[in-house]
């Protein structure tokens, strides 16, 4: 399974999708949708919100496909769209307040949606739960830094904040994750066998 930023699509397929060829557009969806939804799901945490942002991201992809210049993998371009949409959502005060309320309710027993739970080893679910226990901002920062490879400068720019904001959010996320895993440090890796 490839990370979204690494997904490359043949130029011919992109050109056909631009021209409106139905099968090519469907093939693009098949290639990009799972990794796009995986990224959005990890960034925003809430299933219903992730679905909305996923829909928005995929529609933007098709509406603006003619702007893709091909100077990198298509997946990286889609990742930029998805991250921008997620961060716009997280920055909105209304959504922020609602996410905070939801987080307060979920903190006691962070439940994971069936979609994420399906066919996952138990040790992976631990990591998913640990991630779900973070605040929306801290979760987005730790994911962008540790998994997507963003720098603190890039995260600060994306959030419209300072570099120290990014560093402090990351430190907070690390502390919280460490607390989560300390009693379970003997668990095995969740790499696919």
């Amino acid at each position, binding site marked *: *399974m*490839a*990370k*979204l*930023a690494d997904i490359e699509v043949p130029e011919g397929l992109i050109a056909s999708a631009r021209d409106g060829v139905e099968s090519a*557009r*469907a093939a693009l*969806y*098949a290639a990009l*949708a*799972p*990794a*796009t*939804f*995986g*990224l959005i*799901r990890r960034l925003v945490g809430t*299933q*219903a*919100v*992730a*679905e*909305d942002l*996923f*829909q*928005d991201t995929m*529609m933007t992809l098709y509406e603006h496909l003619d702007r893709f210049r091909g100077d990198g993998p298509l997946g990286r371009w889609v990742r930029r769209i998805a991250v921008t949409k997620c961060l*716009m959502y997280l*920055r*909105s*005060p*209304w*959504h*922020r*307040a609602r996410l905070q309320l939801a987080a307060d309710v979920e903190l006691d027993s962070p439940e994971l949606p069936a*979609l*994420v739970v399906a066919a*996952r080893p138990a040790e*992976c679910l631990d*990591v998913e739960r640990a991630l779900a226990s973070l605040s929306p901002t801290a979760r987005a920062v*730790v*994911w962008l*830094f*540790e*998994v*997507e*490879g963003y*720098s*603190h400068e890039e995260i600060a720019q994306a959030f*419209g904040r300072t570099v120290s904001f990014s*560093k402090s959010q*990351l*430190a907070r996320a*690390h502390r919280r*994750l*460490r607390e989560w*895993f300390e009693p379970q440090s003997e668990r095995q*890796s*969740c790499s*696919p066998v």
Partner: protein
Amino acid sequence: MQPRVGMPPEGEPDPSARALAQKLRELPPEVPPPFDWAELQRRARARAPRASPLRRVDLTRRTVLLAAGLASLVAAGVLLGRFLENGWEPARPAADAVTVARAPAPRSDFAPGDRRDAEPLLERAETAERWLASTPDSGPIVRVSTRLAVTDLEDRIASMDDLLNVERMRDARAGRVRALQLERAQLVDSLAQVRYAEMLAAELP
């Protein structure tokens, strides 16, 4: 951008941070999407504008309503400017108005009349905020100009929240906090008006 190997914020090697980062990176990057290609197409069609004469009428109505919403936004801005600059005349209470007991107000730089007049604005903003929180996440807003106006207002409200937090932590003068609260209330009010106008426009046949 390649993932780093668990560097802590200070930039020093940290085995536990490295282990945490490793756990995160081992999560499967793909999650089955909530709907398939056919469903995305159906949703895209439902969202796309229809090129029909009826639709043109609909768009005209939308434009009028949008203009009304934006006009009220501008009017709210002008009123706020006037209020911050000069204050406004306090409304005269009716002779038989019910007197409501109030807790002692915090020290403020505002005249008593200003404070009394600000209460309805704050109450209205509180109601608007509850209504906005109850509206759908993505909402019916599809016009880029309106989306930008809404995003701008939301960002300004978020900045105002940050400023209020900073001022409260610095134990700032109550008058300064009050002024920020009023400005925030005005922004919330404006946002509610724009959102409401858009929702009305979206529901027109």
